[in-house]
Structure formats: C-alpha cells, structure tokens
C-alpha cells in the first residue's frame, strides 16, 4: 500500500473566525485596507456582537470539520452593546473547557479582543492562531463523518 504523504504536507487548517460587527470585523477590514496578510485558511463570519455567539455555532463548526475556531470581540468595557463580550468571555471559558474534555485541544479555540483600530493586531492574531492550529494537525475528534459527502 502506498502511503500518501502529500496530504500531510499540504495540510491546510480550516479556521472559522466569528467577528463582532463593531470592533473585530472592522479590525479585519482595517487589516485589509493596510494589506496586512494572514492565511487564507481563516474564514470570517460576521455577527452583530460576540455575545450573539451561541455555543452551538462553535460545536457545529468542529462537527463539520473545522480545525480551529476563534471568536473576536470588542475589548472588555468597549462592547458596542455594553456587556455582550462579558457574557461571551464566561460562556466560552466553560465551552472551551468542555471541548478540552471532549478532546478538542485548548489551542484550537480562542477568544481574542480586537478593536476597530487594531488591524495589525488582527493579522498578528490570525497568523499566530493559524500556525498554532496547524501544528496540531487535523481535528478528528469531533468531526462527524456523517456530515461529509
């Protein structure tokens, strides 16, 4: 049997980023405006507030084969809706610890605070997170094979 090494070499992680509309999504736009590159493996979903993040969305992403999930919101105290990011901070702390128990390493999940003025920080965070996830390899723990065609 021939072992296909290529798949491992060409391995590109799939990263889902949830960005709040007011800070992080604007930060991502700023990174774009300043042409600060980060890996194309990062795919952004716009949500009104990081507080919109139902834990279900994160679980679904892992179930569908995402290798990492990052949630970006306004800095604590700066939430456009005053308190949304506080709920996310606590909710995700619990969720990530549960995911850890299920075998999804802590390094695959992250909550980052990125303001609308921090394009540089957005790109840096994404570069860092992508290489961190890539070093772990594919997420096989939670991936639901029934979801694959």
């Amino acid at each position, binding site marked *: 049997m021939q072992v296909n090494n290529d798949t491992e070499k060409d391995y590109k992680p*799939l990263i*889902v980023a949830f960005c709040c*509309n*007011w*800070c992080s*999504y*604007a930060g*991502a*736009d700023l*990174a*774009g*405006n300043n*042409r*600060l*590159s*980060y890996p*194309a493996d990062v*795919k*952004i*979903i*716009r*949500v*009104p*507030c990081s*507080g*919109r*993040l*139902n*834990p*279900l*969305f994160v679980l*679904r*992403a892992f179930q*569908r*084969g*995402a290798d990492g999930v990052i949630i970006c919101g*306004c800095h604590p*105290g*700066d*939430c*456009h*809706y*005053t*308190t*949304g990011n506080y*709920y996310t901070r606590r*909710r995700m702390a619990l969720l990530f610890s549960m995911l850890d128990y299920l075998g999804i390493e802590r390094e695959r999940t992250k909550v980052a605070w990125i*303001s*609308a*003025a*921090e394009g540089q920080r957005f*790109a840096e965070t994404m570069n860092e997170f992508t290489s961190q996830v890539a070093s772990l390899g594919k997420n096989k723990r939670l991936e639901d094979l029934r979801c694959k065609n």
Partner: protein
Amino acid sequence: MQRIGVFVCHCGTNIAGTVDVSQVAEALSHEPGVVYSKDYTYMCSATGQGMLKDAIRDYNLTGVVICSCSPRMHENTFRKAAEQAGLNPFMLEIANIREQCSWVHKDMAIGTAKAIVLGRAAVAKVNLNAPLTSGETAVTKRALVIGGGIAGIQTALDIADAGFPVDIVEKKPTIGGKMAQLDKTFPTLDCAACILTPKMVEAQQNENITIYSYSEVEDVKGFVGNFDVKIRRKARYVDETKCTGCGLCTEKCPMKKVPNEFNLGMDSRHAVYIPFAQAVPKVATIDPNYCLKLKSGKCGLCSKVCSVGAIDYTQKDEIIEEKYGAIVVATGYNPISLDKFDEFAYSKSKDVISSLELERLMNAAGPTGGTLLRPSDGTHPHTVVFVQCVGSRCEANAEKGKEYCSKICCMYTAKHAMLIRDKYPDTDVYVFYIDVRTPGKNFDEFYRRAVEQYGVHYIKGMVGKVTPEDGKLKVQASDLLDNRQLKIDADMVVLAAAIEPDKSARPLATMLTASMDTNDFFTEAHPKLRPVESPTAGVFLSGVCQGPKDIPETVAQAGAAASKAIGLLCKDKLKNNACVAESNEMMCNGCSQCEKVCAYGAITYVDKEFRMPDRTTQVRRVASVNPAVCQGCGACASACPSGAMDLKGFKNDQILAEVDALCR
C-alpha cells in the same frame, strides 16, 4: 426555494487582481437557489447598480448576494438599489472578498478558492433570509454637547441656529477651553480672546443654548434619538442665578495662594475665583480644597461681602436628568506631562517651559501682563531655544510620548518665535526641528516669514540635553545639516509638548459605547467618508477628541458635526434597526434568562392565553421583545435555553448555514 442572483465585483483590479472573478461567478452559479450569476467591473457604479436592479426584475430574484468590498462600505448602497427594484433590502447579503480576501492574500488560486467559499456562505445565508421591515421611533429634539471649548461652542451655536435646543456640559467653571488661554492665533496673528469671547457671549445669550458649567456627564443610557443622560452639576457653593460676577468676594478672600490653573500655575488666585475676566458664565466658584470656611468652618468673609447673597456653603452636587436625540463629543485635549523628560530639565528649571505656558507669559492678561520675562528671576531673556516634537512622533508604545504627530506645534512655534522677534528684536531665537510641517492655507508662507523677515534661526536637529548652570540653560544640540554639535547658552527653553486627548474622554467613550483608538482619540464611522460621526449612531465628534487639529479645522469639524446632528434632529421618526430579536412564544418556557442579559431592557414578560390541543386555554408567561428598544445584539438569543429567542437577520439557522458552507 429562493431565486438568488450573485454579482461578483472586480473593483477594478482591487479584487480581480488576486481573485479570478469569472471563476467565482461560475462556481457560485451551481449553488442551491442561484439562478443568475455574473461578474462586473464596478458593482457600486450607476451601471453596476442598474445591472442589479434589472436582474432583480428580469429574473424575479428573491435574494441577492454581492461579492464585493466590506458590507461596512456598501451594504447600504446595494440594499437601497435592491429596494428600488422592489426587493426587500434585507434579502441582500454581501460576501466580503476585498478587505478580507483579495487585499490580504497574494496568490490567485488561494484568493479565488477563498472567495468562492465566502460567496457560498453568503448564498447559504440568503437561502434562509426573510424579508424584514424596520419599526420607527420618535426623536427627542434636543442635543447635548460635551465640552465647552471652541469645538463645543461652535457646534452648539450651529445647532441652536437651526432652531433646536442644545445643552453644553463643561467640567470647568467657564466655557472657552484651551483657546481662551491662547494669546495669538496662527497664521493671521489675531488675538484669540478677541475672536473667541464674542462667541462665548453669543452662546450664553442664545435662548436655545443652556450652559451647564462645572458639570460632568455621569451616565448615558438609551440609543440614537432617545438618549437618557445624567449630568452632575458640581457644587460651586455660589448660586449661579444670583451671582452678578462683581468679584467683590474674590477681592476679600484671604486665601490668596492657590495655584492658578488658568495661568498653568505660574501665578496664584483666591479660593473663591472667576477664572478670567471674560468667563462665561461670569460666576464665582469656591474651590473646596482651599476655602477656609469649607475646610475648617472659620472665615465666611465672602458671604458677608456678597450684596446679593449668592454664597451658599451648603450647596451639594446636583444630578439632572435630560433626554437628548443627539450627542456631540467635544472633549478636546491637554498637553502631555513633561515631567518624564529629564533631558530637558523641565522639572529642574523654571525657565524651561511648555508652549502653552509661553502662551500665558505672552498674554496681556497673563501672570506677567504680557511682558516676556524669565519665570525664575523676572529678567528679560536674550536667547530663547524652542524644541519641537517633544513627545510627538515617538516609537509605538513609548514610555513617554506619543506615536502620532501633534500637528499644531510647528505652526505655533513659528508663531511664538515670530512674536518674540517682533517684540524683542534683541532676542536670539533658535528653533530645533526634525521636519517643519506646514500643510495649510498660508501656513508655509507664515513659517518662511518667521525665517526670512524675522530672522528666526531654524536648525535641523534636536536638542539632546539642557543643563541649568549659573542661571543659564546650557543647551546641547545637533545641527544635522552642518554635521556638528552645538552648545548654546540660553535664557529660556520652550518645549513644544505633544497633545493628548483629555482624560475624561475614555470613561465617556465607555458610557457612550463609542469606540476609541489606541491613543484614546475617538474613532470615526469611516476615516474618509464619515469623519465627524462615531460608529455609534447618534454620537458625533467635534474637535481634537477625534485627532489633533488646529482652530480652523476644529471650527470646520464643529460645523460639520452640528449639521449631522441637525440632520438627525430634523427627522420626526427614525427607522429602527430591522434586525431585532423575536421570541417564538410556543417555545418560550418563561425562564427570564433573556430578560436578564438584555442591556436595554427591551424584553418584558407577559402572561398570555394559549389554546391547547385539548381545547382548553392555558395562561403562560412568555417573553416579549419591544422592537423599538431592541438594538439587535443577540445576547438574548444565545442565552435562551429553549431556542425560542432568535435574532432576525442573524438567525441561528442562518449562522449555522454559514458555518456549514465554510466547512464544506
């Protein structure tokens, strides 16, 4: 099933340079629901929008996906166009393939693949979109201006002129701000007080303007058109309605050694004081930190001499509550603290002063009556050295100093140098500069005049060290063009200190949920196209709180902010956010989780009768959302354990569909 049209924008080469747009259009045409797919050079152009409208009509489209720039840029443009073609605007979604794809990736294959995935997610979302309509709320026709400097005064005057009531909240006892402290203004050299004080009086006399001096904003609730603001009126121990500003109390006050902040501590004032002669309101204020009566209960002289009985030692802080439709932030700036700049000996020698201090020294109403004298010994200085960029243009996160250019220093230093040479031709004036930045009408001419006509010595280089020695200041500096080190014996050194946003801006931004940059300047809704609006609806920016600027620019921006606020106040009704939360009453179990997380109090619980399958009626407690108050954050939707609460436009199944499409 939806009938979706996909439009892929080239954005010239901005997108087409790294994304194969025709391939994206082709790939997306096979997505479920897509009946039309096309790429075009500029979707936002009139032709592009026309194409969109035609396609909506010709193909009976029920949903549209535009793959283009950020939705923060053109979502509204396209939604308006779709509406004109008879489509509900909320049936249109944007896939951001410029800022978040073509501009950050270099490789064509990678960019194209990502653009297809992003487009796919948008199509998946639109498949689940439903038409939404916005509700309406009334607008409170009153504006609040925070800060009473030239920016705040001008904004208030312009709004008041349009016929709307305006309140100015100023934390100092008088309005006027930094401009009241200035002597002359560049590049015309007119006297700052002569042009400012009439405006202050105008503000006071305008019947639409209420000035809350010695007051601070305590709390802000609500949203655009309907802000509820609490203002703390600090106790000034003087009844503002009775005080005539005669100044008799000040004369008699025995406490004479209070550092005068208006003259930056270079002379002293009394414990009961009026900051300066043209103060508005011209009302005395008692400084509780120094007043003998308030501190020890002994004295009371001022109340004895006051003929109108305005002194009231029992006055307490007062909180007033008011409703506003629009808020304009004009909190201004301060020069940075120079205490950490040991090399310039600022804290060691009295003769090393900041530019604002020089401004007071040159002013006829200042501590020296307008004669330039050394603060240490009161003698006339014969050599004056100016140092530019003190604390400006430092590296990012510098321990002392700011990364940005403070913008105004080059010009005011030229002004100072020119004025000194004009008044005292026997004085040698040196200006050490890194670059002289004079973009502005008549600015460079002004600077050249300082050099050519007034003989100010401009030297490219920086001062490295100032050492006070035998009553002189030994200045060691570099002359980069001559490549030598200079040593000058100066009598006075003036530091052009960087400016920073006022300290009150940060807590205020938190109250307003308005965003700030890393330097604590307020961010604009768009750096180029919406420069006077904050991203938070109903909050406008005026003056230096948004970024360093000089007086003409500040006044221009103040007018712009006013016109934006007037535009808002003119409306009788405001369209609400259509993406509001909605509760499915059949699924709601009445747990109150959503009510607890709602920051706006938009959710209430009502007892409602339900017909049960067995034909009985049952009363159940269910959540109900007030769409006029809901801001659409979705906190309730993620808190709901039964899945009854959902956010329109960002429904659970829509986001899940996006996740699925990205992971496919």
